[in-house]
């Protein structure tokens, strides 16, 4: 299969990923209804995650594991990426922190940039928000659902 990332992008990503501190685990939820888009996303994610030992990926078949798709709030939204933090507990087991970060659709064009930013963001375990917005968001007592539409650039 032809690689999706060319040498120049690979080189840039390797530079970016040199800054990674914490580990990042990306869940890709797939569905047979969106097979082609899911395969493209899977290959893209494989190529990205292979550029750093700090990035791992797991592919979840939403059709076979609907309860997991429900748990991560990505039912009927394939291909869906859930970008989480991976830490090891004292006993060596994996601890996943879900920050509520999702990318829906093939992360191409502009969305590819967002995926890379998300990896850096989650790896740093710091939102980087201003104190004012940070305090407001932390004080929210009602659910907030943000749907940000973009198109592949």
């Amino acid at each position, binding site marked *: 299969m032809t690689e999706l990332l060319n040498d120049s992008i690979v080189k840039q990503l390797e530079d970016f990923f040199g800054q990674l501190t914490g580990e990042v685990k990306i869940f890709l939820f797939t569905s047979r209804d*969106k097979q082609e*888009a899911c395969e493209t996303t899977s290959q893209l994610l494989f190529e990205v995650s292979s550029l750093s030992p700090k990035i791992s990926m797991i592919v979840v078949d939403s059709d076979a594991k609907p309860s997991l798709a429900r748990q991560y*709030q990505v039912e009927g*939204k394939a*291909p869906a990426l859930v*970008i989480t933090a991976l830490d090891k507990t004292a006993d060596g087991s994996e601890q996943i*922190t*879900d*920050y*509520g*970060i*999702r*990318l*829906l*659709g*093939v*992360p*191409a064009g*502009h*969305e590819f940039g*967002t995926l890379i*930013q*998300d990896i850096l*963001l*989650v790896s740093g375990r*710091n*939102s*980087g*928000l*201003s104190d*004012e*917005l*940070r305090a*407001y*968001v*932390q004080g*929210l*007592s*009602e*659910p*907030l*659902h*943000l*749907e*940000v*539409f*973009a*198109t*592949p650039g």
Partner: protein
Amino acid sequence: MLAHQIAMENPAMVLAEGISAQDFYELASEYGVSGVPDTVINGKGRVVGAVPEKQMLSQLMKQFNK
């Protein structure tokens, strides 16, 4: 993406989805998305364009009346 930074601060309350309008065109057309980025807040409020944090904060305050 600002929405993802926001989610990170309170993931128990916030879900932030970056959505490809091309792959999810039905949802995008349901909301009447034309220019991007276009942020839909709790299915109602709108922020069109990439806005600075202060503007996003004022939209959120408007949404929650506080």
